[in-house]
């Protein structure tokens, strides 16, 4: 009787959590452990690792040139995040006021591009932005500019690509928090004589802040790692943390250092999440669970 009971309780649990656990072990735990372990090993001349134990890989991270790359990446990610907020907030506020049908139309306009590979979409940005691209040709034929603008293979191009790729991650959390906004609060404020600007600053903004924080974290963190955007729109010469890690595994053939950098990036991410929680963010807004 006792064993029957056990089976009774194990089977459903295994069914429910088994696949997820299996997935997590296969694609998170094993790779993570592998990266963690090789980050303490020595490099092989032609890539790969040689057995041994060293902390040198972690010490190397604090070289001035790598710290500069970290600083640059964080700066670029911050600019991307700020631009995403500035663009997404008014847009989301606007659609949140619409009828259900219009809302659906706008939200699907944000979501549908997701069905196309992001590589393909970035290639189309190359065609738009380059010297003899569509935007430059249009501006030149309208005589707005005489010389083509340099919009690609520099920071500008990278930021355009990042903002474009990541803006849905800002819009969706913002949308859910703006939609939840209690209109009666605004009406009450209005009755008490608050001008729209004041009402926005003291009512709307604080109440939608969780959405802004959640969106900011969901844009900021991927920006650090999206190396293909910096490679394609930055001409392979603008380095973000993601590019630096990739280059350690490919061009520099220093796998252990690349692994150490990955661990460092994970720590950086956790630090960002910690800051997020400290300033009042809720991890549940990110789709995670406590």
């Amino acid at each position, binding site marked *: 009787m006792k064993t029957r009971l056990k089976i009774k309780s194990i*089977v459903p649990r295994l*069914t429910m959590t088994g696949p997820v656990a299996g997935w997590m072990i296969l694609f998170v735990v094993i790779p993570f452990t592998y990266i963690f372990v090789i980050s303490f090993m020595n490099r092989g001349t032609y890539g790969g690792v040689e057995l041994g134990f060293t902390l040198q890989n972690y010490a190397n991270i604090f070289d001035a040139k790598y710290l500069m790359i970290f600083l640059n990446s964080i700066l670029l990610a911050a600019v991307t995040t700020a631009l995403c907020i500035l663009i997404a907030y008014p847009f989301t506020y606007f659609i949140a006021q619409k009828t259900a049908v219009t809302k659906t139309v706008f939200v699907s306009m944000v979501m549908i591009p997701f069905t196309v590979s992001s590589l393909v979409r970035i290639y189309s940005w190359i065609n738009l932005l380059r010297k*003899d691209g569509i935007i430059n040709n249009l501006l030149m034929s309208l005589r707005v500019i005489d010389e083509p603008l340099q919009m690609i293979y520099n920071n500008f191009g990278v930021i355009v690509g990042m903002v474009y790729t990541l803006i849905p991650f800002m819009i969706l959390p913002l949308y859910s928090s703006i939609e939840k906004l209690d209109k009666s609060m605004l009406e009450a404020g209005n009755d008490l004589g608050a001008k729209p600007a004041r009402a926005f600053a003291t009512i709307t903004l604080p109440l939608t802040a969780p959405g802004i924080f959640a969106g900011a974290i969901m844009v900021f963190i991927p920006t650090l790692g999206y190396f293909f955007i910096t490679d394609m729109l930055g001409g392979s010469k603008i380095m973000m943390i993601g590019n630096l890690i990739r*280059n350690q595994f490919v061009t520099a*053939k220093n796998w252990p250092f690349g692994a150490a950098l990955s661990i460092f990036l994970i720590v950086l991410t956790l630090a960002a999440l910690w800051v997020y929680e400290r300033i009042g963010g809720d991890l549940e807004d990110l789709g995670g669970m406590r």
Partner: protein
Amino acid sequence: MKKILKQLFAILMLAAMAAFTLAGCASTGSGGASPAGTSEGAADASETGAAPASSEEKELNVICWSEYLPDDVISSFEQETGVRINMTTYDTPDDMLAKVKSSAEGTYDMLIGPASTYVEIFNKLGMLQKLDKSLLTNYKNIDPSYLGKDYDPDNDYSVPYMGAGVVIAVNRSVIKDDIKSYQDLLKPAYANQLVVIEDSRAVVGMALMASGYDINDTSDAGLAAARDYLVKLKPNIKVFDGASPKTEMLNGECAIGLIYNAEAALAMEQDPDIECVFPQEGIYFGADGMMVFKGAKHPGNANRFINYILDAEVSASISGVFPYTNPNKAAVALLPDSYTKNEAKNVPSDVIAKSQPLKDIGDASVKIDAIWSDFKG
């Protein structure tokens, strides 16, 4: 009763999930069954005398530079032999090494890549197998000056595919002054004008040549000079592109290119303003070779494919699409003057004589990697 049904359902679900997972693994493992129309393919093959051994799957996994092996050649080989070719491409030799090293043995059957460095590197790593010369009936087509190099004295491991050099391509409608040497590229006037390939050894090697050192120099003085040169060159570089650098030349993004000779030749065909310059310090020129990996699952197909490529007509058709310098003298005899007389395509022998090939430099390659990482980052 209901509970038992629930449990039964749960177990069934579990079994189904397990089955799906395993099925997924299995299908990636075998890489799919042999292609349809096998018998037809075999019939064709026996006519051309290239019948694949019955013990091998009709498949071949090739890793090759991008923009180097025309699709037509692949599909005609597939039609003649019924062997399906799976292509993996790379833009930089570093990329290739990372791909090969991080894959299980047998993932790739053969490589088309830089012979002068990688025959030695892969041999040190014990990753190559000897070619089956009995299958290479077209071996005699190769120009002997490309054979018996010191990295592979008897060509046991590699046969030349194409000779590729790095030249300076200049768009004369933008750049009026004379560019004759690598040093000329440092002019501040060329800020943000260059497209450069992504090959670390080749680019650092050119920096060494620009500074008067041998392309394979690893002395501290030489590397310091190369580093200096690259630091000065950096502000002039707009984009690194190892896959198709001609694109940036043709769409007006860059006016000067430090690019592969065939890329320059193709750009010149589309834009007559573009010119090809052989820098006076000498160019980097090396033959890419075809090699077969140890542990290859389809070594017979690999050797047969190599022999197919060495066929004069096939080789000539490759040069027609990607006009690199062809080491196949029987193929060159078939090619028109527009190829043989074009210096960007058929690099003249006096330029090749002055050129320098790359060699494996062993542990010193770590130093090159460091310079390259600093340079790009």
